[in-house]
């Protein structure tokens, strides 16, 4: 379904969707949103591209292998949990770094991991399906 109108619209929307996805991720701890919804939105951005211009273009736009993204996300989530280890705290204990003036902490890192993992996974599946059909 590669039509001029859809293609153009998707180009206009993709950046916006990515932005929104990061916003949803960031706000997740305090407002509705979070890593999963954010990741899905980010994936939606590229699925839109895939539907408008084909999965090859979308994959190129993504730049990295979607599977790699997913695995990195999983690894980040694991690292976020492991950071508490050296401090003698249990796995996945939230650690906060308040000096920055921003609410930075391992839960956010964890959520970033979720974001990337979800985005990568959904895109892996979507691209695989797109390629087959």
């Amino acid at each position, binding site marked *: 379904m590669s039509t001029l109108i859809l293609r153009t619209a998707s180009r206009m929307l993709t950046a916006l969707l990515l932005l929104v996805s990061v916003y949803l991720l960031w706000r997740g701890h*305090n407002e509705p949103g979070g890593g999963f919804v954010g990741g899905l939105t980010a994936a939606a951005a590229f699925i839109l591209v895939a539907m408008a211009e084909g999965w090859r273009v979308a994959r190129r736009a993504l730049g990295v292998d979607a599977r790699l993204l997913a695995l990195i996300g999983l690894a980040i989530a694991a690292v976020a949990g492991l950071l508490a280890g050296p401090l003698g705290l249990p796995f996945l204990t939230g650690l906060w770094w308040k000096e920055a003036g921003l609410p930075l902490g391992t839960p956010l890192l964890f959520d970033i991991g979720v974001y990337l993992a979800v985005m990568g996974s959904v895109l892996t*599946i979507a691209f695989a*399906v797109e390629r087959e059909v």
Partner: protein
Amino acid sequence: MEPFLAVAIGLLVAVAAYLMTDRHMVRILFGIAVLGTAVNLIVFVSGDVTRGLPPLISTGVFGPDQGVANALPQALVLTAIVIGFGLFSFALALVFKVAQRFQTADVNAIGAAEGPFQRSGRADTRTPEPDAPVDQERAA
């Protein structure tokens, strides 16, 4: 438990059961999706359904308002939805692959692993499917 919701969810489960006992793979797939949705709803309603307020805390206060919805079941449902999505995606891929390989959507007509139509004999074809080109087999 709200009776209307209970009945509606029961109906969803019944529909899922009906679909999952179909011979067409896509109906089975739909059944899985409906069953997942129904169970997610059950997880959600299991912890008190409260109309209205989401479990958010306003800036500057330390707790939510009175009467917010129970946050825990919501978190559980979220996890369940995501997991369900993962499983469903795989199921979809599998159904697609099976349909492609066997050129049928009838689960009773496949019978490669077992079943009424299982091929007899000793031929052992358990060699992995080569990757590409996709499928040469056109056996019905």
